[in-house]
């Protein structure tokens, strides 16, 4: 298992290299000159040329790519053209904000989705089953931006129950330690802020978590239905086991194998949804970071931002593969 993990990690290197190259080339295909954007419309040719040189953008692209690549291996993600701060120093708060939101969304999706799927399968054709599956069907086809805006309009504005934007109360911001505000507020002994952070997480968490929740619920249901028909479930019942344990122990562990795949895939896709959710809810995450960088033609930030997101995606897939082995003893990685 350990050597398998190492080998899988090694195999990631060419993947990440390829991704770096593609992102690097794509960004240079975007029209617009960074020097011009930084200096504004009235900039002189001379000033622009000087800045282009200073930014290193005048050199041939292979040289630029090589420099960028060797930087990455030493942990240097480049310097932001806009803020002039090394990206590796400023990216973390954004990344943490996205991870926190995604984890909360995934937590909502998994806890509700898996349980709804289990209960639907257990009481197949009951009213719960029907309601849950109709809701799931609607959930799968729900556009994030529409759901997000409706949440804001109804829950935040009409009912005034929850805040519309941001991660915390602007007048009483959380003092960053790890940049995971759920943790930081507790580290600072500010339980009131902890509640406030949760209140900020609910709406974007639901907006982002609804699609994966619906997909997970449907997958869990069909997987459970199949497992519950199998011979070993009949064996478990013939032992005199309580139905609850037959479902939550003997069936679930088998049914989880395909569900884990879906959860992994959805977690990857979540990153895409997160960027959309962040713009709707003014969430200062990696999506916002990249989005702003794009409008500024901040090449290094776009490049490194996308690279970091892609690396996370690949890592999630690795974790999913390793999870299989933990659940299913028939899979042995050598």
């Amino acid at each position, binding site marked *: 298992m350990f050597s398998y993990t190492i080998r899988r990690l090694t195999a990631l290197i060419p993947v990440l290299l390829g991704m770096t190259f593609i992102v690097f080339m794509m960004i240079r295909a975007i029209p617009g000159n960074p020097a011009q954007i930084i200096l504004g419309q009235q900039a002189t040719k001379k000033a622009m040329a000087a800045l282009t040189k200073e930014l290193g953008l005048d050199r041939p692209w292979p040289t630029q790519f090589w420099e960028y690549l060797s930087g990455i291996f030493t942990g240097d993600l480049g310097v932001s053209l806009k803020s002039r701060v090394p990206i590796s120093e400023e990216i973390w708060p954004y990344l943490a904000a996205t991870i926190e939101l995604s984890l909360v969304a995934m937590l909502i999706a998994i806890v509700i989705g898996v349980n709804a799927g289990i209960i639907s399968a257990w009481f197949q054709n009951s009213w719960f089953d029907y309601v849950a599956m109709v809701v799931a069907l609607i959930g799968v086809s729900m556009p994030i931006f529409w759901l997000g805006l409706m949440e804001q309009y109804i829950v935040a504005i009409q009912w005034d129950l929850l805040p519309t934007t941001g991660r915390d109360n602007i007048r009483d911001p959380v003092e960053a330690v790890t940049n995971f505000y759920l943790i930081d507020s507790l580290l600072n002994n500010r339980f009131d802020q902890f509640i406030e952070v949760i209140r900020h997480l609910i709406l974007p968490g639901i907006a982002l978590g609804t699609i994966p929740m619906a997909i997970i619920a449907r997958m869990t249901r069909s997987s459970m239905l199949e497992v519950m028909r*199998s*011979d*070993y479930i*009949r*064996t*478990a*019942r*013939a*032992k*005199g*086991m*309580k139905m609850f344990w037959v479902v939550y122990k*003997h069936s679930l*562990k*088998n049914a989880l194998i395909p569900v884990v795949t879906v959860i992994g895939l959805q977690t990857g896709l979540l990153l895409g949804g997160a960027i959309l959710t962040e713009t709707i809810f003014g969430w200062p995450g990696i999506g916002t970071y990249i989005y702003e960088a794009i409008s500024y033609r901040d090449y290094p930030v776009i490049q490194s931002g996308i690279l970091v997101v892609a690396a996370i995606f690949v890592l999630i897939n690795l974790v999913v593969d390793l999870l299989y082995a933990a*659940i*299913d*003893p*028939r899979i042995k990685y050598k």
Partner: protein
Amino acid sequence: MNKPIIEVKELKTSFRTDEAEVPVVNGISFHINPGEILGIVGESGCGKSVTSLSIMGLVPSPSGKVEGEILFKGENLADAPESRMRKIRGNDIAMIFQEPMTSLNPVFTIGEQLIESIRIHRKWNKKMAEARAVEMLRLVGLPRAEDLIREYPHQLSGGMRQRVMIAMAMICDPALLIADEPTTALDVTIQAQILELMKKLNKETETAIMMITHDLGVVAEICERVAVMYSGRIVEEADVRTIFQDPKHPYTIGLIQSVPDMRDKKERLYSIPGNVPKPGAAQPGCPFAPRCAHAMDKCVTKTPSLKSLSDGQKVRCWLYEDGKGVKLNDTAIS
């Protein structure tokens, strides 16, 4: 002998499928004495498995309906609540199934599944339960019992898995073991070993066995008494010697003639022409009539009842009502 361990009276099990009620078991009665091995023989689809599931209270609800009496040590299981049935299953009545390859849960170790079987019914600690599990694995003739409890089902052969199933069924020392075609899926040498094992356990533990099979060879090997089922009814019941030496019902005679090597004169494998009628078509008359060489006018209009002959032999056929009878040498089948 003392009172029967189980007495089934007029058991009727039917399934509701789109409006129609399909009777699968059609009023069968039999009993098993303590320590006795009763064979239930019949072609595929005649309702053997449904009979055993009815006794276990595992007929799928709400589509299935069980009527009649199932007296286990005097208690009627047919109307016992699920909570009571759970205490009986695996503890007083245990069951093993036809498919050893799929009857064990693939994601739990052999030990986990054995230990669980005890701890559902007994308040034993893990250590005691594990010791008992190892003891049971030895009892069913499995080598390396201490290592085996840490292995997963996929690491075992079919024969070994069926031994594990038997160990699991016998672990709480049940009064009755229902074995639903326990050897059908195994190859011949393993079949013989498993039957030998069941015979041994029956002697040592005095557990009564209800041996379901469509193989008269299995019956000859271990049963003391046999009930022959046809289309949801018992058509003949007798002790094993009588069944082979003096079968009465044309269907039983056909079955015996279709067994290779059973009567050495016959070289060619004889099989009964025609098929078991599909359950549902509840017509008057003897269900075997379409395939019977002795069918009379009466046979198609009126259903014969189970008539007791000498020596406790019972037969359901008009020929014996009229005192005519058939000899084994006669052609039984049209």
